[in-house]
C-alpha cells in the first residue's frame, strides 16, 4: 500500500512554540498590511465600471486613454486583455454617466472604431457598501454559528480552538491579498468562506480523534493524546489537502480570469488551513488549558 506518511510520530506538543512563533509573525505582518495598505477592492465593493471591449482592429492603449482624457475623464485604467484587440477598462462612477449612459458614451468616443462590449459590470456606491456589509455579516455569522455548533457537539474549549484556527486562516488569506494588492471582490469573499468551511473540516477531524482517544487511551497525558491524534489523522489531512489543491490548480490553469481571484484565495486558504489544522487548532487547545475528562 502506498502511503504519504509512514508510521511517524511527530512530537507536535514539544515543538509547539515554533508554530506559535511563525504564526504570530505572519499574523503581525498580515494585520499590519491590512491596516496600513488596506485592500485593492474590486468594483463589487468599491463601485465603478469594468468594461471589456472587443475591437475589430488592433488598438493602442494610449489611443484609448487619449479619448477618455479628451472627454475630461482622467481616472481610468486601460489594459490589453488576452489579445491586442481586447481591452479592459476600469472607470469610476463619473457624473457624466448619469446623464448619458456609459454605452452611449463609449459609442460616442469610439465612433470611428468598430467594437462590441464583451463584458460590462457596474456597481453603484450604495450597492457596493451593502455588499461589503453583507459580506462582513456573513463572515461573523459563519464564525459564530460554528463556535456554537462545536461547543455543543464537543465542548466550549474545542469551539474556541476551532475559531482560533479559523481567524488565523482568514487573517492570513486576507493579508496575502492586501500585501500583494490582489483584487478583492465578491468571489474572493466566497472563497474565504469556503476556506472557513474547509479548514474547519480539518480541525474537526483532529478534534474528533482527540475526543475518541481521550476515552480509549486513558494512560496517556493530555499532551500525548493531542500528539497522537494529530499523527493519526495526519495522512488523511494531507491526502484531502492534496486532492483539493489538485482541483484548485486545474481551476487556475483552465478557469480563466473570471475565477482567477477565487482560485488564488482558495489556494492560499487551503495551504494555510492545512497548516493551521495541524499546528494551530490543537496547539491552541493546549494553551486554552484542555483537561482530560474526569475518569468516571
Amino acid at each position, binding site marked *: *500500500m502506498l502511503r*504519504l506518511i509512514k508510521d511517524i510520530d511527530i512530537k507536535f506538543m514539544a515543538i509547539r512554540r515554533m508554530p506559535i512563533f511563525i504564526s504570530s509573525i505572519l499574523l503581525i505582518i498580515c494585520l499590519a498590511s491590512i491596516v496600513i495598505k488596506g485592500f485593492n477592492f474590486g468594483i463589487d465593493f468599491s463601485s465603478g465600471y469594468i468594461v*471589456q471591449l472587443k475591437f475589430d482592429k488592433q488598438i493602442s492603449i494610449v489611443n484609448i486613454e487619449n479619448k477618455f482624457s479628451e472627454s475630461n475623464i482622467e481616472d481610468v485604467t486601460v489594459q490589453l486583455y488576452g489579445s491586442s484587440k481586447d481591452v479592459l477598462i476600469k472607470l469610476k462612477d463619473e457624473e457624466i454617466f448619469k446623464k448619458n*449612459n456609459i*454605452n*452611449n458614451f463609449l459609442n460616442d468616443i469610439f465612433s470611428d472604431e468598430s467594437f*462590441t*462590449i*464583451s*463584458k*460590462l459590470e*457596474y*456597481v*453603484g456606491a450604495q*450597492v457596493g457598501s451593502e*455588499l461589503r456589509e*453583507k459580506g462582513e*455579516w*456573513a*463572515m461573523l*455569522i*459563519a464564525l459564530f*454559528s*460554528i463556535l456554537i*455548533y*462545536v461547543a455543543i*457537539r464537543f465542548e466550549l474549549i474545542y469551539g474556541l480552538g476551532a475559531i482560533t484556527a479559523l481567524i488565523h486562516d482568514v487573517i492570513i488569506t486576507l493579508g496575502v491579498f492586501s500585501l500583494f494588492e490582489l483584487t478583492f471582490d*465578491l*468571489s474572493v*469573499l*466566497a472563497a474565504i*468562506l*469556503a476556506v472557513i468551511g474547509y479548514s*474547519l*473540516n480539518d480541525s*474537526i*477531524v483532529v478534534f*474528533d480523534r482527540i475526543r475518541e482517544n481521550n476515552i480509549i487511551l486513558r494512560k496517556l497525558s493530555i499532551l500525548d493524546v493531542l500528539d497522537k491524534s494529530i499523527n*493519526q*489523522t495526519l*495522512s*488523511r489531512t494531507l*491526502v*484531502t489537502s492534496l*486532492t*483539493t*489543491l*489538485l*482541483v*484548485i490548480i*486545474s*481551476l487556475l*490553469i*483552465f*478557469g*480563466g480570469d*473570471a*475565477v482567477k481571484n*477565487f482560485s488564488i484565495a*482558495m489556494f492560499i486558504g487551503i495551504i494555510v488551513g492545512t497548516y493551521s489544522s495541524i499546528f494551530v487548532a490543537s496547539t491552541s487547545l493546549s494553551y486554552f488549558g484542555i483537561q482530560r475528562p474526569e475518569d468516571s
Partner: protein
Amino acid sequence: MPRYPLWKYILVLLVMIYAVIYTLPNFYETYPSINVTNYENRDLSKVELTKLIEDKSISYLGVDGRSIFFKSIDDQLSAYNKLSSDQKFKYTLSNYNQIPKWLHAINAQPVSLGLDLKGGVHFLLQIDTENVRKSRANQLETNLRNFLIDNGIRYSNVINDNNEVKFVLINKNINATTLDALSDTFSDYDVSLLEEGEQKNIVARLSEESFADDVKASMTKNLAILRSRVDELGVSQPIIQRQGKDRIIVQLPGLQDSTRAKNILGSTATLEFRLTKGSPDDWTASETIGTNTVSESILYRHKNGSPILLSRNVIASGKDIEGANSGFDSQTNQPAVFVNLSSFGASKMLETTSRNIGNTMAVVFVEQDKSEIINVATIREAFSKRFQITGIDMQEAKDLAILLRSGSLSAPMSIIEERTVGPSLGSENIISGRDSMILGMILVILFMFIYYKNFGLVANLALIANILIITATLSLFQATLTLSGIAGIVLTVGMAVDANVLIYERIREELFNGNSPNASIVSGYNKAFSTISDANITTLIAAIALLTIGTGVVKGFAVTLVIGILSSMFTAIIGTRAIISIIYENKTNKGLSI
C-alpha cells in the same frame, strides 16, 4: 461481516436512477432559436413557418413546433432582425433542444445557465423615492390650496419642503366647521393649525405610512411598465422581479448589447405638444438678452441647437397618448411615430388646432431634467386624435413608440448595478468551466486510484455519482448554474473524496492493528461516521452563511457547495459501502486492495 441491508441497496439504486435520468437532458445539444406565434399567442403550422423563413432566404437548421432553430447565435440574430422588421408575428429569441417527450413529461430539463455562461444583461434598478415624496407633496400643496380658496381662507405664503407643506394665513380667525372639514378632507395627512403668536399657519405633513404606500404603488406601476417595455425587446424568458421595497431586478438572457435596453428601460421620456410663441427674431433676441421677449413663454432648444420660444400651456402630453407605432411617413418616407390621443387629449388638440391654423406647433421630447424640441410644424388643418411625428431617425422612432405605448414611469428609476456578459464571452466561460472540471477530475481520479487501488476506484465511482447527483439536482430545481457554481462543483470534486479518504484511512489503521479485512471495513465505516457528519455539518454552516449574502457570484457557488456536501456524504457513507459490500461481503478476504 454483517449483511448490508437491502433497503440501502435499493436507496442507492433509486438515487442513481434519479441522478442519471435528470442529468440526461444536458446531453442533448441546445440550439439558438426563434419562437414564432401570432398575436393571439397561437402557433403557426409547420408549412407556414417554413415558408416564412424560406421567403427571407435565411439559413436555418430546422423547424419544430413554434421554434425555428439555427446553427449559431449569429444566424439566429440576423434572422431575428430580418423577421422582426415585418411585425406580422410575435418573435422571441429562445433556445431549442430535441429532448424526448418522456423526459419532458417528468419535468427533466437541462440545467438553466446563468447570464455569465449564456450571455445577457442583469440590471438592478432603484426607484427614486425622493421623487415620489416630491410629487406627493406637490399634490398635497395643490389640493390644500384649492381647499383654502374654496373656503375663503386667504394666505400670504406657501412653504413646501417636500415633507411638510405650510400655508401662512392672512385670516386671523378660522371657524371650527372649516377646521373639521379640513381634517376630514385630508385624513391621510397630519393636518394641524399652528399658532405662532398672532400668526396662524396650516401645516400638513405626509405620514410615513402613506409615503410607504405611495412608494409601493409606484413600484407596482413601474413593474408593469417595465414588463411591457421588456416584452418589446424580444428577449426569451426575461426575469422582472421586485427586490425589497424599492428595487427591481431585470434579467435579459441572450441580449447582445445593453445599450438599447438601458435607453429604454430606465427612460422617463415623454412628449409634450406646445404652440410656438413669437417670431424667429424674438427667439434669437431672447437668447442673447437672457430674458424672454414674449410674455407667457418658455425658452426651449431645438435638437439642432437653435432657440425657440414655446407657450407655457401644454396642449397634450405623454399621459394623453393611448397608442403609438413607428413607421414611415407616406409622403416623405421619413421615419415617423404615429400617435393616438385619448378622447380628452383629442378634444384639447382639436380645440387648439382649429383656432391656430397657420401657426406652428412644437413636439418637445422631455426626459427627466432635459427637454428638447424634436419637430416644429405648421398647423395646416385642424386635427384631433391621430397624427404623426417626424424629425427622428428609425431607431429613435421605434424606441419612442415603445416608450409612449408603455406609458411613462410613475417615478424615475436608475440602474444601480449592471452585469452584462456578451454571448461569446459566455461560451468561453462554459469552456473554461468544463475544461477545469475535466482536468480536476482526471487528476483526482488518478491520484485516488494510485493511492487506494481498488478502494480508490470505488471512491472514483462515488465521485462520478456525485457529479451526476449535483447536475441532476440543479436540473430538477432549475437552479441557475453560474461560472462560480462550476467552481463550486470543481471544489466539490476535491472535497468529495474526503469522506472516502477518512473511511479508508480508518480501515488502514484497523488493518495495521491486526484486525481482519472484513472487520476492518465494518469498523472503518462505523468509526469514520461521526467524524464525517461533524466535519460536513460545520462546512454546511459556512456554506449556508454564504447563501445569506445571496448575491450572484456567491449564491451560485454556495448552492452547488451545499448540494455537493450533502451528496458527497450520501455517496461516501451509503453508496461506496454498498459497492464494497457487494465485493467483499460473502468472502473471507485475505487482504484488501487499499
